[in-house]
């Protein structure tokens, strides 16, 4: 937590440049350095991004829920907007999970969608849930009520994540069972290094985009206040 708060004092352009550099390092590692997977060959490399993006999406939703809790509990005036932007980033990365997962499924198994893939189905449910978050938020006029509703719904989301995952797992015994698995590569050596760098790069990119959107929205609000002062 302290790392994140120190991170928010770093000037935004510097953060953007660092995430650019780290992302390029990660891409180089993924495509030029990491060894080819024995089973799946070249297409396995999509995992470095797919898994990292999935984890980043979870982190964004968790951050959104944490800010929501701060809003409800500590009445922090900044927390509502921060929660909203975090959830927004989470949805963006969640969409990327669905897209990259779909591409991997097409490459590996010939189908664009796999009901047997737990993570893909989970992200579909979460995508539906958080899209409803935006519908809820834009259906209420700005004010304390909207902030409260959004915060409470974000908390519901974070409880839904493990419950949904469990549901999808236990549903496997009566829905059409498929034997496709998103088994990761066996970690070791350069594979582990590449994964860690890719994960760090994506987390940092998510944080940068979060800061960019937050700053933009705050500037909007301040300009509006100045205009109508």
């Amino acid at each position, binding site marked *: 937590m302290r790392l994140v708060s120190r991170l928010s004092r770093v000037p935004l352009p510097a953060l*953007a440049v660092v995430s650019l550099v780290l992302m390029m390092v990660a891409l180089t590692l993924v495509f030029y350095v990491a060894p080819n997977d024995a089973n799946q060959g*070249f297409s396995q490399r999509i995992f470095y991004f797919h898994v990292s993006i999935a984890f980043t999406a979870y982190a964004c939703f968790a951050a959104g829920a944490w800010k929501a809790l701060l809003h409800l509990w500590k009445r922090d005036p900044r927390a509502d907007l921060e929660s909203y932007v975090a959830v927004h980033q989470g949805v963006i990365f969640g969409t990327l999970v669905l897209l990259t997962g779909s591409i991997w499924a097409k490459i590996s198994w010939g189908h664009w969608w796999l009901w047997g893939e737990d993570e893909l189905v989970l992200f579909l449910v979460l995508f539906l849930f958080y899209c409803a978050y935006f519908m809820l938020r834009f259906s209420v006029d700005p004010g304390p009520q909207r902030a409260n509703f959004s915060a409470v719904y974000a908390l519901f989301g974070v409880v839904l994540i493990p419950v949904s995952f469990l549901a999808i797992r236990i549903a496997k015994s009566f829905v059409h069972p498929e034997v496709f698995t998103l088994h990761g590569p066996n970690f070791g050596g350069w594979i582990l290094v590449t994964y860690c760098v890719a994960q760090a790069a994506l987390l940092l990119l998510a944080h940068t985009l979060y800061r960019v959107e937050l700053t933009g929205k705050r500037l909007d609000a301040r300009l509006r206040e100045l205009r109508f002062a």
Partner: protein
Amino acid sequence: MTTAEKYVTAAYCVVFAGVLVYVVLIALKLQRLEREVDELERREPKAAEDERETIEVG
């Protein structure tokens, strides 16, 4: 990877790098805008104070 694949990958990486450079530029613009709004806010309260009407109550 064959040479052709290496070049294709490099092309994608260049596009990605381009997008991230765009993010850096946006970040720079936002930093500048923040500085300008800060300055405006420092000047505005004084102007707003003068404009506000005083209405007698009671």
